[in-house]
């Protein structure tokens, strides 16, 4: 029963995927099965989160082979929180996608591949074996390839080609690093690697291989200087798909970075110093890149890069408080970023374009949407009392505690620029009159479901902001769990009950 719960985040999306394939000729049943699968996943994720919040760590050995020989799966606090948030965003994306209807085939394929993507993402969160992590990355990658090119069209296919080529390259780097690491350390089990690295027995070759692997994760996370693929491709996909990608995909890379670095090098060192500078550069370059853009989704894509910088900053500072900040930031950011893409898509539908120059008049036509935009936008910039404020506050406080003045200054400055960027969207899309007059604005009648999704996510942002205490406690407990590495080190101990 425990093992079934442990693998449910992977099993459920895969079963739903199969159901969707089998029902593909049944029209509406695909969507029903898919939504049912998503709701079940969310339920399981809720149980996992509840258990993790009690301090329980779920772990199992696949096929009964003891670690380090078998593949280990572990769900600790960080993994449970990310699975829960991902399940929520997955469900919201599917529901939001229903209102962008009109293309039966596109829609059914969309449901199918989203479940494939969810299986890959959840698999990456629960595995404690680096080669298994590679396999899950591939699962989510092939699903994301299909999703980004879904619908076709010259612009979308051109963007997909860029996305496919650069992500394949990152994957090859990961595979090479995994091979080299096995060659020099003799294991790919995270627990055994942690023992080797923490006791200082790891060879130079193993350390180099891990650094190469971190490069692959950095590409996936879109960290400076290897972020170029993200703002070049995210805006070509169908809107619900961009939202899903922006919310979840880079965060899998950030998760892998956090997992590996905290497990192998819990004490700050030279690597953390490098990460600190990369994080600062990411924050600034991302936000400045956004300033040059004139389309909603392209602005938001650059902000993804900038926000990844904050999370890596928390990892680089490596104090328990900073790491708690990074975990808090991850949770807050996934919700906010996906929601901003949802809102951007809805605004574009109403205005007839996502070019800022051709948008306008939304404040008068859809005041609810304007309010719902303000919540995640201000949260992204870090205005109290929204969730982004607490996330940024933790990181800046941690930087100041460690006398990392530059990092604190960059984090604050980036917040100001983010606010400027958000006010640009506000002014152009909401405040200014539509260039073709009021009559050109679309009707929001058929978009209630999308509005409801947006409202729920905005409500969650408010809730995290207003009730930050429990989330902060959870983040701090995850941080100490990450630094102690207990969940993974315990894999090597012989099982107690057998």
């Amino acid at each position, binding site marked *: 029963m425990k093992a079934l719960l442990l693998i449910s985040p992977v099993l459920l999306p895969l079963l739903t995927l199969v159901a969707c394939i089998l029902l593909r000729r049944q029209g509406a049943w695909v969507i029903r099965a898919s939504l049912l699968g998503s709701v079940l996943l969310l339920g399981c994720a809720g149980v996992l989160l509840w258990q993790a919040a009690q301090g329980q760590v779920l772990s199992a050995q696949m096929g009964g082979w003891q670690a380090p020989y078998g593949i280990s799966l572990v769900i600790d606090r960080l993994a449970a929180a990310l699975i829960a948030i991902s399940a929520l965003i997955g469900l919201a994306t599917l529901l939001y996608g229903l209102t962008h209807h009109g293309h039966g085939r*596109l829609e059914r394929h969309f449901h199918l591949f989203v479940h494939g993507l969810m299986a890959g993402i959840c698999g990456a969160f629960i595995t404690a074996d680096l080669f298994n992590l590679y*396999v899950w990355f*591939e699962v989510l990658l092939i699903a994301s*390839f299909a999703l980004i090119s879904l619908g*076709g069209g010259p612009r979308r296919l051109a963007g997909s080609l860029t996305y496919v080529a650069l992500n394949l390259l990152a994957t090859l780097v990961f595979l090479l690093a995994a091979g*080299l690491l*096995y060659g020099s350390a003799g294991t790919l089990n995270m627990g055994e690697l942690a023992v080797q690295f923490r006791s200082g027995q790891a060879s130079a070759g193993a350390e180099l291989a891990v650094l190469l692997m971190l490069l692959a994760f950095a590409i996936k996370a879109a960290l400076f200087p290897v972020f170029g693929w993200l703002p070049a491709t995210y805006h070509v996909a169908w809107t619900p798909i961009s939202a899903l990608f922006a919310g979840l995909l880079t965060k899998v890379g950030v998760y892998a970075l956090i997992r590996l670095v905290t497990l192998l090098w819990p004490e700050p060192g030279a690597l953390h110093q490098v990460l600190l500078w990369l994080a600062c550069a990411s924050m600034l370059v991302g936000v400045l890149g956004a300033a040059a853009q004139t389309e909603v989704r392209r602005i938001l894509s650059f902000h993804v890069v900038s926000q990844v910088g904050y999370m890596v900053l928390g990892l680089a500072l490596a104090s328990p408080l900073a790491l708690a900040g990074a975990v808090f930031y991850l949770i807050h950011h996934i919700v906010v970023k996906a929601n901003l893409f949802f809102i951007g898509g809805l605004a574009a539908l109403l205005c007839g374009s996502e070019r800022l120059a051709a948008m306008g008049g939304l404040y008068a036509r859809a005041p609810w949407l304007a309010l719902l935009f303000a919540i995640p936008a201000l949260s992204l910039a870090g205005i109290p009392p929204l969730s982004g404020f607490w996330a940024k506050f933790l990181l800046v406080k941690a930087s100041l505690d460690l006398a990392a003045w530059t990092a604190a200054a960059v984090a604050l400055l980036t917040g100001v620029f983010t606010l400027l960027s958000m006010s640009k969207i506000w002014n152009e899309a909401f405040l200014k009159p539509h260039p073709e007059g009021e009559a050109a604005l679309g009707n929001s009648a058929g978009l209630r479901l999308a509005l409801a999704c947006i409202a729920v996510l905005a409500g969650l942002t408010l809730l995290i902001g207003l009730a930050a205490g429990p989330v902060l406690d959870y983040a701090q407990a995850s941080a100490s769990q990450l630094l102690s590495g207990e969940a993974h080190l315990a894999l090597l101990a012989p099982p107690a009950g057998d």
Partner: protein
Amino acid sequence: MIWLTALTVAGLAALGLWMLLDRNLKRVVLGIAVLGNAINLAVFAAGRLGAEQAAFTPAGQVPLAAANPLPQALVLTAIVIGFALFAFALALLKRSRDLHGDRETDHVSAVTEEPAPDLRQGPDREGQA
């Protein structure tokens, strides 16, 4: 043997990277495949070469010259995955060329940079193209 493998990996990787940097899209995609094979070979060699016995363990015996089966399992997985991804990339390339005759990487970037299309005709006009 290990030197021969290392040189092969180096040669293949160099060739793959060189093709990846080409302007011609077809070569870029093929370059990924060549580089992928170089890396597969490297992963295989990570299990050390030389031991040539199959890794079967008869009851009560310890085979001394058994080859390391783990990298073989890893590389088989990687080959299968790599093949699927390569097939997808080729299909994408073909469709993209059918649509607008893309042959060069610069052109692909230029198409991605085009301003977003208007949505007046329906929710996802680009999807109908």
